[in-house]
């Protein structure tokens, strides 16, 4: 086990020169929040959560999930100080729970992130079609728009265009500004019965269907796995990463809770479910149109579309890097670890993700599935369930890691907080599984509600089996599980 040196020389010409390129707290916060695409969540996820689950406690769900994730983060960022190249959840589970658990987590991550990514192809149509019909009088089928977005995402992925930091910052700030303006407008136009904080009351949340809300809302936080990836690139990893992660969680959960409540204010918390079912993701913009005029609503709709595209690209890049890292470890075939010489993109990982996206879009078209309900909502919630699984596994891995390496940090960081987080996440996961019929909108005795969660357990089983096969046949590959690109040098610094 090689642990990060506590003190590395920070003075000197070399460090000073490198420090110029390093990230401060605001940059990391930006990266994390933008990966969660605020407008996509508020317009797309929130209205869909109200509509599909019939539960009005969505704002409370964001507050509770934010709190749980903050507790989870305590152990998560502490482990980041002690694990080399902690690139992702699977590196943590490999370290804490053993390499087979690492491979299993990687498989779950690939499934979950792909589900969240392709789910967005179901949403993009409903964001772009109203704009096209308003401007050009055309209304193409959802899958035409989805394929255009797919082609753009795949192309940018191959060119290794990460939406550039500055573009990202501008987009994100505009998105947040629009959301805040919409919120204020909503809050200034309450229904006749006045303001109500019902949606924050436990009685509106602890109802059947609550697990479904959680599975949907957790997806809104999925960008935050990436915060520790920046450890090596920050000015002061011990400080920057934890603070940035807490800020990001606070901002995300606060903004989502406020906005999902604000949406109920002009509609009425008793009517929010029915109205969401009627208007879908358009609800946010219809309300804005009533209160602020058509121009502002249109600006919001345009940003909704760009926000989804940014999220598509972010997820695409996350997935292609996961595949690349696994290829470098030789856990996946070495070809997936290939770099594009001209662009430095993880080329085969990127192509693989695009193939998955295309296949799902084609399947939906062939079977005539509804893009919003069956693709965005069902597949997206399936992805959310995977994120929950990874969070729960990672919090247990943190506990296990520090029980194997005791005395490194204080008890709150390595036992109490990770312990609480693990219990809460397992409970939350249980609720999500129990309510999975609501997630899918099927009858409680439907077979499908068990089939989809079972996919994850099959993936876990196959991951463990694959790792054990590697241990038996290719021990040098087994030893590198969880190291990512560092597999080239083995477990060193």
């Amino acid at each position, binding site marked *: 086990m090689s642990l990060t040196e506590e003190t590395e020389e920070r003075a000197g010409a070399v460090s000073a020169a490198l420090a110029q390129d390093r990230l401060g707290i605001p940059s990391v916060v930006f990266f994390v929040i933008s990966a969660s695409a605020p407008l996509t969540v508020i317009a797309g996820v929130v209205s869909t959560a109200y509509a599909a689950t019939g539960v009005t406690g969505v704002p409370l769900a964001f507050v509770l999930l934010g709190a749980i994730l903050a507790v989870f983060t305590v152990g998560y960022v502490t482990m980041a100080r002690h694990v080399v190249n902690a*690139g992702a959840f699977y590196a943590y589970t490999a370290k804490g729970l053993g390499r087979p658990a690492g491979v299993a987590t990687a498989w779950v991550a690939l499934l979950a992130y792909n589900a969240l990514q392709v789910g967005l192809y179901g949403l993009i149509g409903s964001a772009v079609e109203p704009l096209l019909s308003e401007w050009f009088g055309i209304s193409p089928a959802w899958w035409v728009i989805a394929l255009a977005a797919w082609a753009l995402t795949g192309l940018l992925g191959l060119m290794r265009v990460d939406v550039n930091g500055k573009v990202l910052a501008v987009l994100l700030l505009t998105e947040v500004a629009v959301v805040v303006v919409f919120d204020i407008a909503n809050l200034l136009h309450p229904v006749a019965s006045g303001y109500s904080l019902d949606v924050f009351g436990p009685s509106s949340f602890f109802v059947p269907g609550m697990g479904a809300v959680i599975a949907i809302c957790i997806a809104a936080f999925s960008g935050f796995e990436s915060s520790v990836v*920046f450890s090596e690139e920050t000015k002061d990893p011990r400080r920057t990463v934890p603070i940035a992660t807490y800020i990001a969680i606070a901002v995300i959960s606060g903004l989502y809770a406020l906005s999902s409540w604000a949406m109920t204010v002009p509609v009425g918390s008793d009517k929010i479910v029915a109205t969401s079912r009627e208007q879908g993701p358009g609800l946010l913009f219809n309300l804005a149109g009533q209160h602020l005029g058509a121009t502002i609503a249109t600006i919001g709709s345009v940003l909704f579309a760009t926000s989804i595209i940014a999220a598509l690209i972010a997820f695409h890049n996350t997935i292609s890097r996961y595949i690349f890292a696994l290829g470098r470890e030789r856990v996946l075939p070495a070809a997936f670890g290939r770099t594009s010489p001209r662009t*430095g993109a993880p080329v085969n990982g990127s192509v693989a993700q695009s193939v998955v996206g295309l296949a799902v879009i084609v399947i939906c078209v062939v079977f005539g599935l509804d893009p919003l309900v069956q693709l965005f909502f069902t597949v997206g919630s399936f992805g959310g369930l995977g994120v929950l699984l990874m969070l729960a596994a990672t919090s247990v891995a943190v506990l296990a890691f520090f029980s194997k390496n005791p005395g490194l940090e204080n008890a709150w960081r390595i036992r109490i907080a990770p312990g609480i987080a693990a219990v809460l996440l397992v409970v939350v996961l249980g609720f999500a599984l129990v309510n999975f019929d609501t997630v899918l909108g099927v009858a409680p005795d439907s077979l499908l509600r068990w089939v989809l969660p079972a996919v994850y357990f099959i993936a876990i089983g196959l991951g463990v089996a694959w790792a054990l096969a590697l241990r038996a046949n290719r021990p040098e590959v087994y030893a590198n599980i969880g190291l990512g690109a560092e597999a080239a040098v083995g477990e060193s610094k």
Partner: protein
Amino acid sequence: MVEVDLSGPRLANDLFFVLHDDTTGRMRLSSRLTGLGLAAAVLGELMLTGRVTVELTDGWVGLALVDAAPTGDTLTQTALDHIIAEPSHRFRIWLQFLARTAHTDVAARMTADGLLHPPRGRLSRRWAPVLANTAAWPGGRLNLAIQRRQPLDLQDGVLLGLLVATSGGQLVLWDQNPTYLSASTAALPAPLQELIAQTEAAVGDSVISRR
């Protein structure tokens, strides 16, 4: 470590030629991969000339000074001075540090030595080779050796390793025979193997990095 004749072609020059078009001087790889490769080649020159070596202690990989004698060349001397001044950095930091300026620095040395034309225009970052044959030779040498399955000398072994580690092999090599490539690297002394492995890991990191 075996000393290499300093009057002969230098590793970083060779890699520069291989990573650029031999007539136009166009960069074949993305600039961050080129920078990492050339940074590794500069460290490789210091290692091949017996100035520094890789130090491995307890899973910690750094650079250790072997011989502080002047290198007789501004580029490697500057790098060596930095290593002498701040010996405690790990290997990856040196790669990242040198990668920031390696492309310009190596091009400047080669321009001063009359191997490259200075860039045309102030904004251009393209140095065209003076003689296309000279520029094509390092890559040709590697390709011929691979084709004939002949072993490479020490410096060309490192050159090939760095070319493959930066992913340039996909563009330059006629035959990316995996057996030959791995045997070639395995034949190198351990510190030079570590140089190549560190470069491969740094390239992988830069692919995964979100910036």
